[in-house]
């Protein structure tokens, strides 16, 4: 991991905020999986269980004006950014009340009010578009920043290399956040990647790059604070390679045969979510009662969103002719 000198540390409030976002992700995902198993949602689901520290800490530094471009394994990124859950659930249920009127689905959620600009199903494609949003921020004279989320596998596709080079040449306010969960779909990191650390690739593009413990809120906090500061002050992009582990395979139903039992068990034993909860209690940052109440309110929010989503109307077939172009295609 890359050490930062004079690294800012999260205070109690920051840790509580990061924990709240992590728990919101986990409680929401748990309900999605349970609803899929009951047969009430039909969608491919790409779990990010175990990776929550990354978007929770990134989002702690972002405001509503700041924007994200994320990928198919991206529900946690929008939940961390406080996207309201009702339009999210209606979308994954394919209902017209969904944020995309049921025309995008879980792999392609957009919610501009909270800065969720693009969720792409194509590996690597979050990055070139993030550059354009960041160029617009610069032209606007705004200090907003854009986060491009992607995985370790995406660092091997051309879009990554083109986007990092252009962002660096144009000094764009983008933060490239790579969740390195050690597997590109089913392929081990080292079997498909030419360097031992993706952060080293930043050197080739003349931008700061760091390998961060993506399961450690302090480390994520310190690096994200520096990256946001760099972006807001016009110094350009940063690449953060955030080391983590995916507990539930590439896609729901995947049996993880490409992982060893030992590495998976070790990662799950070090689950960052209960670890941060314990720390909040041990350090006197939050009481058991406070955390129980937080959990209860998040579960209620998720249950309400689920009920709202599943009760929604199916989109009318007229939607096939709408939003193709600005002007509706005549029947």
């Amino acid at each position, binding site marked *: 991991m890359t050490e930062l000198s004079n690294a800012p540390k999260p205070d109690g409030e920051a840790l509580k905020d990061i924990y709240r976002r992590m728990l919101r992700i986990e409680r929401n995902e748990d309900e999605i999986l349970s609803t899929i198993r009951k047969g009430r949602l039909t969608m491919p689901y790409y779990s990010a269980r175990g990776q929550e520290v990354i978007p929770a800490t990134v989002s702690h530094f972002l405001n509503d004006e700041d924007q994200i471009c994320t990928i198919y394994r991206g529900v946690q990124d929008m939940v961390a950014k406080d996207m309201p859950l009702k339009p999210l659930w209606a979308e994954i249920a394919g209902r017209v009340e969904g944020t995309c009127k049921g025309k995008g689905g879980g792999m392609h959620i957009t919610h501009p009010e909270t800065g969720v600009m*693009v969720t792409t199903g194509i590996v690597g494609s979050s990055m070139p578009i993030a550059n354009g949003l960041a160029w617009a921020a610069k032209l606007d004279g705004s200090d907003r920043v854009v986060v491009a989320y992607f995985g370790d596998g995406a660092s091997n596709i*051309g*879009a990554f290399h083109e986007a990092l*080079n252009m962002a660096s040449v144009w000094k764009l306010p983008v933060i490239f956040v790579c969740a390195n969960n050690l597997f590109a779909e089913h392929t081990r990191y080292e079997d498909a990647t030419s360097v031992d650390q993706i952060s080293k690739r930043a050197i080739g593009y003349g931008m700061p790059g760091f390998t961060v413990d993506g399961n450690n809120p302090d480390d994520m906090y310190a690096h994200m604070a520096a990256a946001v500061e760099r972006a807001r002050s016009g110094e350009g992009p940063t690449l953060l390679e955030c080391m983590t582990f995916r507990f539930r395979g590439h896609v729901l139903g995947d049996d993880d045969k490409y992982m060893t039992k030992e590495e998976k068990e070790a990662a799950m034993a070090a689950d960052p979510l209960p670890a941060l909860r314990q720390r909040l209690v041990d350090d006197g940052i939050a009481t058991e009662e406070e955390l129980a109440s937080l959990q209860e309110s998040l579960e209620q929010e998720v249950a309400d969103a689920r009920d709202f989503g599943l009760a929604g109307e199916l989109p009318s077939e007229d939607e096939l002719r709408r*939003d193709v172009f600005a002007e509706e295609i005549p029947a």
Partner: protein
Amino acid sequence: MSEMEKMHAIQAINSALHQAMAEDDKVLVLGEDIADKEGGGVTGTTAGLSTKFGTDRVKSTPISEQAIMGAAIGAAMAGYKPVAEIMMMNFTTVAMDMIVNHAAKLRFMSGGQTNVPLVIRTMTGAGWQTAGQHSDFLEGWFAHTAGIKVVCPAFPADYKGLMLSAIQDPDPVIFVEGGGTFFIPNDVPSDQGPIPLGKANVVQEGTDLTIVTWSAQTVRAMMAAPAIAEAGISAEIIDLRTVSPWDKETVLASVEKTGRLLVAHEAVRNFGPGAEIAATVNEELFGKLKGPVRRLGGPTCAVPFAKNLETAFIVQPDDMVAAAKELMG
């Protein structure tokens, strides 16, 4: 009467870009070599823009087609109107994910929450011995993609008017600059304003036969016109101008009148846009046709290098004359 200015296509596009950037500060221009420091574009199409409007709005880019399109898409989603140059149409292949999966689809996939009002300017065409990777007309690929409009002008005034419309259009537009239309000066009104997308232009009226064509093939149709007339055939020549969405109304009205249709394009004939037009005419006017619809297009091969092969690849004016005679029986 407005005054006329003699311009060729490249000057007309340049004039449109200058006008659009002066009228609307949301208009941006980006692409390889497009700023004045790099020569104002390899054909000079963007000359003068960076000097006049600054290098924040007129940006030369790395040779990175995916990154160019990504930058244009993101800026368009954030309220700008980028005109992205992909130097040659064959180079769009390198950026197809950005163009097809993102620029064309984001409005639909976001349920109308975002839109991508950008223009892709791209040059192409056989006749310059640039062979198989610098010459293809790929308008059919984009016309087959929902959510993107395809514009293929032939005349300088259309280049200017259609470019002004494309820039202000709320949807993505690919604007094809056909090499076979360059360097033929023509009158452009000094006050040339926007010409609506999706409207064909009847460049020659006639009663026996309808010829539908666009871009460089329109130029060749005009070259064929005197010989067709000499053969006693009254041909109506329609320059489609916009390939998608195409002006069915004008084409159907013309074929209803003439009863005969020849569709000619520079793109490869197999599965080309001519097939869509022919099929639509068959569906709509079956009983009114005096003969089968005829298509002319390139053979199913890459655009060849050798001059004689390249000449044979292109649908020449003589081929159009012969097809017109055949259609008349």
